[in-house]
C-alpha cells in the first residue's frame, strides 16, 4: 500500500469505529445528528469538496457528485447510519480497487521482469558494472552465471546453458557456445560467457518486448470502447430516472389516486438509484481483465500488441499457415536413405566425404547427418558441377553425388523418383549405389498443434507455400490439413488471404515466421509471427508474436484469448445485470440502500477479483 492508501485505510477504520459507537449510543434528535456528522465528515470530506468543485467546473455526474447527493439526501431523511455506511463502503471499494490495480500492475511487471539492470565490462582485468544504455555495438560484455544477458550479441568466449523462460515460456534450458547468437533477457545459468554485442540496448530484443508489452493495452478493444460509451450514458440515465422516481409517483398518488404523497419514501428510493448509478465496476474490470490477460499471455511467451487483437483472436474461425519455418523447421535434413548393395551407413559415409568440400546447404545437411569425424585425406580431384552435384575421387575410386541430371550425364541408370524432397543419387565407379532424400522436416509439435486447433473451434485451416505441390501435399497430409495452395509467389499469398477473408464469417489469422510474409501478416485480421525472437521485421508486422517457434502456442494463445474474453463478458453481464436488478427492486422499494451499496461496491470487488483471474494462464 502506498501513503495515500494507508491514509485512506486509517480514515475508514476510524470512521467505522465511530459509526458503530454512534449506532449503539441511545441518543436522539440534534445530538444524534451531530454525533453522526463526525464519522461522516471523516470519511467523506474529500468527496463532498470534489462534488462541489465538479459542479463549479460544469462536470456533474461524476461519482463524487452522486455519492454526495445520495448521502446528503439520506441525512436529510434522517437515515444517518445509512448515509455514513454508503460513504464508508464507497471509500472501501475505491481503496480495494486502487490496491488491486496497483497489485496487478506490479505482478505483471514482475512477470515481465526481463530488464537487465547493468552490463559487465572488463577494464584492466576487473569487471565494472555499467548502464546497458552506454554499451556500443561491438563492445565485449561479460555475463556471469545467474545474470541476465543485457544486450543482443554473439558469444565470443565460453559455453553455457541459457534459461529463456522469461522470453519464451519454455522451461527447458538451451545450450549456447562460442559463435552462437544470444538474445538479451535470457538468464545465463551455468558458465561465464563473453558476448560481442550486435545491437544497442534500445534496439535489443528485451527493450523491444518491454516496449510492446507496456504499450499493448493502448489499443483498445471493442468491449472497452463499448463500456466507456455505456458508462457515459448510464450515469446520466440513472440520475434522470432517480429524479423521475422522486417526483412522478408522489405526484400521481396525490393527483389521481387521492393518496398521501409519501415524498420521503420516494426520495429514499431515488437516492438508492444514485448509489447504484456509479459505473466503476464496469469501467475498471474490463480494462483490468485485458491488461491481466495480455500480461499472462506475455508470461507464456505470447506477446499480444493490443486488447483488440486479443479480442479478435478469440473469434478466429480460420487459420492460414505458412509452411516453411512455421510448420516445418526451415532447415534441410537427411530424411531417408535408400542404399543399393551397400550398407546405409557406408552410403552415407561416401556421400558425406564426397560433399565435404561443398558449402551447399544440401551438402552440409549430408555431412551433418554423418555424425562422425570426416577424414578428408582420402578425398581428391574434387569437381563441383554446377546445377548437378559433385564428382570426387575417394581412395582412388570415382564417386558421383548429385541429382538425376548428373547421373544421366555419366550414363548411370537410376530408379524412378517417387520421393518427396530433394534427392541425391550416389554412384561409385560408375555403379549406382543408392539415394539419399533430403527434406525440410515437419516440426515435432506441428501435428499436435493442428489437432489442438481443430479442438479449439477452428473451422478451416489452410496452408500456403511457395514450395512444390508434391512437398506441400505431403506435409499437409502428415499434419491433417486438407486445404493446400502451393507454388505461390508472395503476392499470390496476399491475394488468397483476401479471398479467404471475404469467405470467412469469423476472424482469420495468418501464422508465419515473418520472413517475406510481412504483407500477409498485415492483411489478415490477426497476424501471428512465430519464432520471432530477434527478427525485427516480424515483431513490427505482426499483431501477436509467439516468442518461440512451437506451433502449439497458437492454440494456447487462442485459449488464453477465449479465457480472457469469457471473463470480460462475465463481468459485463454480471455487473450490468446486478445493477439493473437492484434498480428495479429499488424502484419498488424492495431493495434498500444496503442492497444498493452491494450493487455498487460488492459488484466492483467481485468483478475486479474475477478480472485478475485472467492473469493466470499456466494451465489454460
Amino acid at each position, binding site marked *: 500500500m502506498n501513503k495515500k492508501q494507508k491514509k485512506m485505510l486509517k480514515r475508514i477504520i476510524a470512521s467505522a469505529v465511530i459509526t458503530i459507537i454512534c449506532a449503539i449510543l441511545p441518543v436522539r434528535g440534534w445530538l444524534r445528528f451531530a454525533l453522526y456528522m463526525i464519522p461522516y465528515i471523516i470519511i467523506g470530506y474529500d468527496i463532498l469538496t470534489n462534488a462541489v468543485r465538479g459542479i463549479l467546473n460544469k462536470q456533474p455526474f*461524476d461519482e463524487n457528485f452522486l455519492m454526495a447527493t445520495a448521502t446528503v439526501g439520506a441525512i436529510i431523511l434522517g437515515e444517518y447510519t445509512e448515509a455514513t455506511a454508503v460513504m464508508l463502503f464507497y471509500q472501501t471499494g475505491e481503496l480495494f480497487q486502487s490496491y488491486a490495480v496497483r497489485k496487478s500492475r506490479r505482478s505483471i511487471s514482475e512477470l515481465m521482469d526481463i530488464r537487465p539492470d547493468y552490463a559487465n565490462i572488463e577494464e584492466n582485468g576487473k569487471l565494472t558494472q555499467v548502464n546497458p544504455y552506454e554499451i556500443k555495438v561491438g563492445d565485449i560484455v561479460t555475463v556471469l552465471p545467474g545474470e541476465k544477458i543485457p544486450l543482443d550479441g554473439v558469444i565470443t568466449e565460453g559455453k553455457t546453458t541459457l534459461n529463456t523462460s522469461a522470453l519464451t515460456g519454455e522451461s527447458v534450458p538451451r545450450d549456447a557456445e562460442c559463435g552462437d547468437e544470444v538474445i538479451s533477457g535470457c538468464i545465463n545459468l551455468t558458465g561465464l560467457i563473453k558476448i560481442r554485442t550486435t545491437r544497442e540496448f534500445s534496439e535489443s530484443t528485451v527493450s523491444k518486448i518491454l516496449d510492446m508489452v507496456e504499450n499493448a493495452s493502448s489499443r483498445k478493444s471493442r468491449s472497452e470502447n463499448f463500456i466507456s460509451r455505456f458508462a457515459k450514458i448510464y450515469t446520466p440515465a440513472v440520475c434522470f430516472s432517480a429524479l423521475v422516481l422522486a417526483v412522478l409517483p408522489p405526484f400521481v398518488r396525490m393527483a389521481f389516486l387521492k393518496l398521501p404523497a409519501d415524498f420521503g419514501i420516494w426520495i429514499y428510493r431515488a437516492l438508492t438509484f444514485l448509489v447504484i448509478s456509479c459505473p466503476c465496476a464496469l469501467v475498471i474490470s474490463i480494462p483490468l481483465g485485458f491488461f491481466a490477460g495480455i500480461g499472462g499471455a506475455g508470461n507464456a511467451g505470447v506477446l499480444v500488441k493490443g486488447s483488440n487483437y486479443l479480442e479478435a483472436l478469440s473469434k478466429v474461425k480460420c487459420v492460414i499457415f505458412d509452411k516453411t519455418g512455421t510448420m516445418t523447421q526451415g532447415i534441410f535434413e537427411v530424411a531417408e536413405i535408400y542404399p543399393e548393395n551397400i550398407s546405409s551407413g557406408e552410403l552415407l559415409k561416401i556421400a558425406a566425404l564426397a560433399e565435404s568440400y561443398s558449402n551447399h546447404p544440401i551438402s552440409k545437411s549430408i555431412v551433418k547427418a554423418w555424425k562422425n569425424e570426416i577424414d578428408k585425406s582420402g578425398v581428391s580431384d574434387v569437381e563441383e558441377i554446377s546445377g548437378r552435384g559433385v564428382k570426387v575421387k575417394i581412395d582412388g575410386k570415382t564417386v558421383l553425388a548429385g541429382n538425376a541430371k548428373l547421373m544421366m550425364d555419366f550414363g548411370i541408370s537410376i530408379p524412378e523418383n517417387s520421393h518427396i524432397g530433394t534427392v541425391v543419387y550416389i554412384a561409385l565407379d560408375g555403379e549406382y549405389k543408392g539415394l539419399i532424400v533430403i527434406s525440410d522436416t515437419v516440426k515435432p509439435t506441428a501435428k499436435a498443434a493442428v489437432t489442438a486447433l481443430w479442438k479449439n473451434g477452428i473451422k478451416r485451416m489452410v496452408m500456403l507455400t511457395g514450395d512444390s505441390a508434391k512437398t506441400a501435399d505431403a506435409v499437409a497430409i502428415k499434419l491433417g490439413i486438407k486445404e493446400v495452395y502451393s507454388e505461390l509467389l508472395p503476392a499470390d499469398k496476399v491475394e488468397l488471404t483476401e479471398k479467404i477473408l471475404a469467405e470467412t464469417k469469423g476472424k482469420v489469422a495468418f501464422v508465419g515466421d515473418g520472413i517475406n510474409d510481412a504483407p500477409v501478416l498485415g492483411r489478415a485480421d490477426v497476424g501471428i509471427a512465430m519464432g520471432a525472437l530477434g527478427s525485427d521485421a516480424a515483431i513490427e508486422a505482426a499483431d501477436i508474436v509467439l516468442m518461440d517457434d512451437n506451433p502449439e502456442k497458437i492454440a494456447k494463445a487462442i485459449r488464453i484469448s477465449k479465457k480472457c474474453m469469457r471473463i470480460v463478458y462475465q463481468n459485463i453481464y454480471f455487473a450490468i445485470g446486478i445493477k439493473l436488478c437492484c434498480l428495479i427492486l429499488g424502484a419498488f422499494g424492495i431493495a434498500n440502500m444496503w442492497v444498493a451499496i452491494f450493487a455498487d461496491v460488492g459488484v466492483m470487488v467481485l468483478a475486479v477479483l474475477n478480472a485478475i483471474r485472467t492473469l493466470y494462464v499456466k494451465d489454460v
Partner: protein
Amino acid sequence: MTKTYRIEVDCANCANKMEEAVNKIEGVKKAVINFMALKMIVEFEDGADVGKVMKKAAEVCKKVERDSEIYF
C-alpha cells in the same frame, strides 16, 4: 507526431473522461489513455505547439479530476 506521457490518475472512469477532454483540445489529433499502464499517448496535428497543447491538456485534466497529473 506521437508522444507518450506518464500520468497519475486513480480511477478508470476519470481516465476515460480525461481522454475525452484531451481529445477536444485543438492541436490534438488523437489521444489515448492507458489506465492500466498509466500512460497517455498523444498524436499531435502537424505544426501543433506541443508545449502549449500539453499545458492545456494538464489544465483540462485537472478540471475533470483534481488528483490527476501529467508528467511532461
